[in-house]
């Protein structure tokens, strides 16, 4: 073996892991070659010096920083695990919510239906107190009366000419104790007659009977429908003279209504003060 070949084996001989392996030819050459011995010795000394270099010790800061970092990572990993588990639970909850919500809604609907059918109270008649019944009956009677009056008056108007109507009103006015039919004639003329004169005369004829509620009611009902300010003022004076308290709301409306003739509003205000 020449020097070149022997020196190629030096790395094996210098490595403690492979030095034990037998390299008889290289070892033999090394034992007999001073040049290679010097080379090998120099390399070996360099390695020895290298191995003898003191191993530096890190400062405590390295260990402290490492464990701080490890702790932080553990906390972070734990928080990530918790967040992942929470998200998983939330998703699972949302899944079941999607599934169960319609089922629960349907079940509640069915339950509500059966519960209503079984337990809901049977509709009962309203409280039949005697006073209430009486009042309703009275109102119904009033309406019926008014309806009969209106119908009757309309029939009367259509059937009679103007002069006859005025004559009829005057005739009725002369009666000291007119019957219901005569009063109906007067009220019908007041409410529906097309002639202002007839209506005014009918109102004058009704003055003696102002104490009768049906007369006062008829005047009060006719008042909002009346178009002539002259008749309106006469009606208001009639109601004020009759001291009809039921007329107050209607009068207040008239007095506040700007579209109504001024003399009518003035009459209404005056009547309200009298009432």
């Amino acid at each position: 073996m020449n020097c070149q070949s022997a020196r190629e084996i030096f790395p094996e001989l210098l490595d403690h892991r492979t030095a034990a392996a037998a390299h008889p030819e290289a070892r033999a050459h090394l034992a007999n070659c001073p040049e290679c011995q010097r080379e090998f010795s120099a390399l070996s000394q360099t390695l020895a010096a290298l191995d003898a270099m003191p191993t530096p010790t890190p400062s405590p800061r390295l260990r402290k920083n490492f464990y701080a970092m490890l702790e932080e990572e553990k906390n972070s990993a734990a928080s990530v695990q918790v967040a992942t588990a929470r998200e998983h639970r939330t998703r699972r909850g949302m899944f079941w919510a999607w599934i169960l919500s319609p089922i629960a809604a349907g079940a509640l609907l069915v339950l509500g239906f059966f519960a209503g059918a079984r337990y809901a109270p049977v509709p009962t008649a309203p409280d039949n107190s005697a006073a209430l019944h009486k009042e309703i009956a009275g109102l119904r009677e009033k309406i019926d009366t008014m309806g009969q009056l209106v119908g009757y008056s309309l029939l009367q108007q259509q059937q009679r000419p103007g002069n006859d109507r005025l004559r009829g009103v005057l005739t009725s006015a002369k009666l000291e104790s007119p019957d219901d039919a005569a009063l109906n004639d007067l009220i019908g003329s007041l409410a529906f007659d097309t002639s202002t004169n007839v209506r005014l005369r009918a109102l004058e004829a009704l003055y003696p009977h102002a104490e009768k509620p049906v007369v006062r009611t008829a005047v009060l009902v006719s008042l909002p429908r009346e178009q002539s300010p002259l008749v309106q003022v006469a009606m208001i004076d009639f109601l004020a003279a009759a001291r009809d308290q039921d007329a107050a709301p209607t009068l207040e409306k008239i007095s506040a209504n700007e579209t109504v003739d001024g003399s009518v509003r003035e009459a209404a205000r005056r009547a309200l003060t009298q009432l």
Partner: protein
Amino acid sequence: MIAVLEEISVHPKPSAANRRRAFLPVDATTAQRPDHALMLAVRDGELDALGELFERHHGPLFGFLVKFTGDRAAAEDIAQTVFQRMLKYRHTYRDDGSFTAWMYHLARRCAADHFRKSSAGPRATDPLNLNDRADDAPHAADRATAHDDHALLHAALAQLDQDDREVLLLARFQELSFAEIAGLLECSVGAAKVRAHRALRTLRDIYFQLQKEPLS
């Protein structure tokens, strides 16, 4: 002849296990688990196992980094970063991996980042430094401090090419097989051995040259 061979026999390298013992704690139960098993446990979420790996390896790793960078503070920072990256990239640790090889793989990357950031390694590659010198001889200020073998060797190491210094330190101190070193350096096993031996011869030349030079 036997005497000659004994005289020129290889100096036994101090056992890495003995070197680690200085940094080792304590826990006898975890100490029995091999590095690979511990790192697999870390990968699977048992983060405390990294503490045992730190205790076993931070000393040799720090020693390698000090020799490699020539800077204690930088070596500490890099060692810290290596363990930080172990945690960060623990999921990439492979079932068939070698923990030590993986650790030095990370260490090389971190050191490369360090050199890139500091824009210069410990070698005198900075033109400003080259202008200070008339030749390759160490600077007078450096030689003034190199008054023992350790200092001389440090100076010699600092003059080595960065790649040579790296392969020499990995092969000599870190108990890595040449197959693992070849994997780290991304070369063949034969090439790794040649590079390591060439680096050793270069170091020897520099080292003996420094020994011959008179101190100023």
